């Protein structure tokens, strides 16, 4: 059983195709992130789930009940928006109370529920403040409390962190995940930030131009990207030119490298995409010259220009291993193709 399911959902705005037959099922209690560049249809998918937009074709169901034509206010969904959405004329407590009132919950239960929610987001002290007296992060926490107060079947979040500064963004991200697991609510989370998606999700759904590129756990999406788009969008990649030897091997400047099975014909020129952590400094490899050394805390990113293929690559080097390296040093680079992606050149 799926808690929330899109079946062949298609949506166009004029001639602009926002969603091209979206198929996606979210399991009960699961958090799935829609990840993709701006304009790929993430918000549209969320708004269709919420009932603010209606699909041209296809269906949306919640717990196997088709809600495609149910009005937004009759769907039992909580939503947190990208822009600050608290009602400016109501205090924090009354904002949280809003949905309970519209659902005609008895007043004693309402008061209790508001207190519970304030405690959940740790904002009890702010119950009588007005939205403009809160920071952006606090406002989004109230918005989350308000959305959860009515015990919705599904929680929808549309880039709730993108208006916040970096530090608040990570703390609130972790808090959203904590609350989500604590409440056990089925969640669809939209973001264009791959780091955020990898950190928070049970599964990540990478989208591009209204289509799903890959759906998988954060590790799968990062370690085994199924398309070059995903490989480039999630994390950073080095690009090396090579030639296909057979379906599991490519040749890069004379050296044969084993790669995951790919669909390119033997002998074609390909781009081989390799993560910085899959390159290592060794005694026998592609020779090159160090062009930059960037200390990043746990690892150091070393830029190397390879001689033969005249390519600049970045290499993740473990703590301490790069201490002796300086710009201009000659090094040798080995390549682990186990997680590489081959793309027609």
């Amino acid at each position, binding site marked *: 059983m799926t808690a929330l399911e899109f079946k062949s959902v298609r949506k166009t705005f004029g001639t602009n195709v926002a969603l091209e037959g979206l198929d996606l099922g979210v399991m009960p209690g699961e958090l799935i992130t829609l990840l993709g560049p701006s304009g790929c249809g993430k918000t549209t998918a969320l708004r269709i789930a919420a009932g603010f937009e209606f699909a041209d074709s296809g269906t949306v169901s919640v717990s196997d009940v088709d809600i495609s034509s149910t009005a937004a206010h009759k769907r039992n969904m909580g939503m947190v928006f990208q*822009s600050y959405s*608290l009602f400016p004329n109501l205090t924090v407590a009354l904002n949280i109370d809003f949905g309970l009132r519209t659902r005609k919950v008895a007043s004693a239960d309402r008061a209790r529920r508001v207190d519970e929610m304030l405690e959940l987001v740790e904002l009890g002290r702010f119950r009588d403040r007005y939205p*403009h007296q809160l920071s952006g992060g606090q406002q989004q926490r109230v918005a989350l409390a308000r959305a959860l107060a009515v015990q919705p079947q599904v929680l929808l979040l549309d880039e709730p962190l993108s208006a916040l500064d970096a530090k608040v963004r990570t703390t609130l991200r972790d808090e959203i995940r904590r609350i989500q697991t604590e409440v056990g609510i089925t969640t669809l989370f939209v973001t264009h930030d791959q780091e955020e998606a990898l950190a928070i999700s049970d599964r990540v759904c990478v989208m591009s131009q209204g289509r799903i590129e890959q759906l998988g756990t954060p590790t799968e999406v990062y370690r085994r990207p199924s398309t070059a788009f995903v490989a480039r969008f999630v994390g950073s990649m080095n690009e090396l030119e090579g030639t296909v030897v057979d379906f599991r091997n490519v040749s890069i400047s004379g050296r044969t490298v084993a790669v995951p099975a790919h669909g390119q014909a033997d002998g074609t020129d390909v781009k081989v995409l390799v993560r910085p952590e899959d390159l290592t400094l060794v005694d026998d490899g592609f020779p090159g010259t160090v062009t930059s050394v960037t200390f990043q805390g746990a690892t150091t990113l070393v830029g190397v220009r390879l001689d033969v293929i005249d390519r600049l690559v970045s290499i993740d080097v473990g703590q301490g291993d790069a201490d002796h390296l300086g710009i201009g040093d000659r090094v040798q680079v080995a390549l682990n193709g186990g997680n590489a992606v081959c793309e027609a050149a």
Partner: protein
Amino acid sequence: MAAVNSRRGSRLLPTVVLIAAAVFFIMPLVAIARFGFQNVPTVLLGWSSLFKKWTLDGITGAFRDRNFGPALGLSVKLAIGTVFGTIGLLLPTAVWVHLKLPKARGLVEFMTVLPYMVPGIALVAGIKVIQPHARWFLNSPYSLIPYYVVLALPFTYRSIDAGLRSIDLRTLVDASRSLGAGWGTTLRRVLMPNLRTSLVSATFLTVAVVLGEFTISSILLRKTLPVFQATYRSSSPRGAYALSVLFLLGTTAVFAVLSLLTRPKSARVKKIDPVVAAVTDEALATQGLAT
């Protein structure tokens, strides 16, 4: 030194303009007030007679006229009806235009200015079209309400439109709907409270229009307050002008109180929207002319 001077200079001009404008508005009012409340022949109304023979005779006389009560009653009812008609019609329309037809905003705005350009008499002529179908309606004095709603449009639509532009309409509406509120509840519990300032000024403008409108009600033979005032003026000019001053001060006071009472509880200092401010000034001016 130069900096201080230039700063002082930059304050001087606005102050002068402000005082000039105040004088421009207040002088005629003072003149009318003296005419209405001083039992002194007009030719003798100079500085020397400023404190002589002030009296309420004129106005009490007007209050005692047997046509005054019904005229006041009718105008108040018309004002209330027009306010409800305007907000009931205009708010949902403006919200709808903002949400669904943002591209048509300019066109709608232009349409709302039309009553300003079309003379009142032409509006009345439009009656010919509906007369055969709606005699019962036209027989009622409340048939003036649609005219007043239309007449007030240039002011009221602008005021509401400015209010809608100042809030994040789409997000507030979506948030409200996702919390289980239908359109009605959303209008009542989310939009109206957050549009207080612009609704109050729309109300003020509407009332000002209703209490100042003469042409249409006189053509349609309705005994509204302005019509009463005009008739009464010929029998007792002093009383009629005293009445005008009283209404102007009265409505201003009522709305001053109203806007204080409806101030957001958060006591947030809301910026006065320049558009609303301009429109308010304009309505005051029309009201001034009408008296």
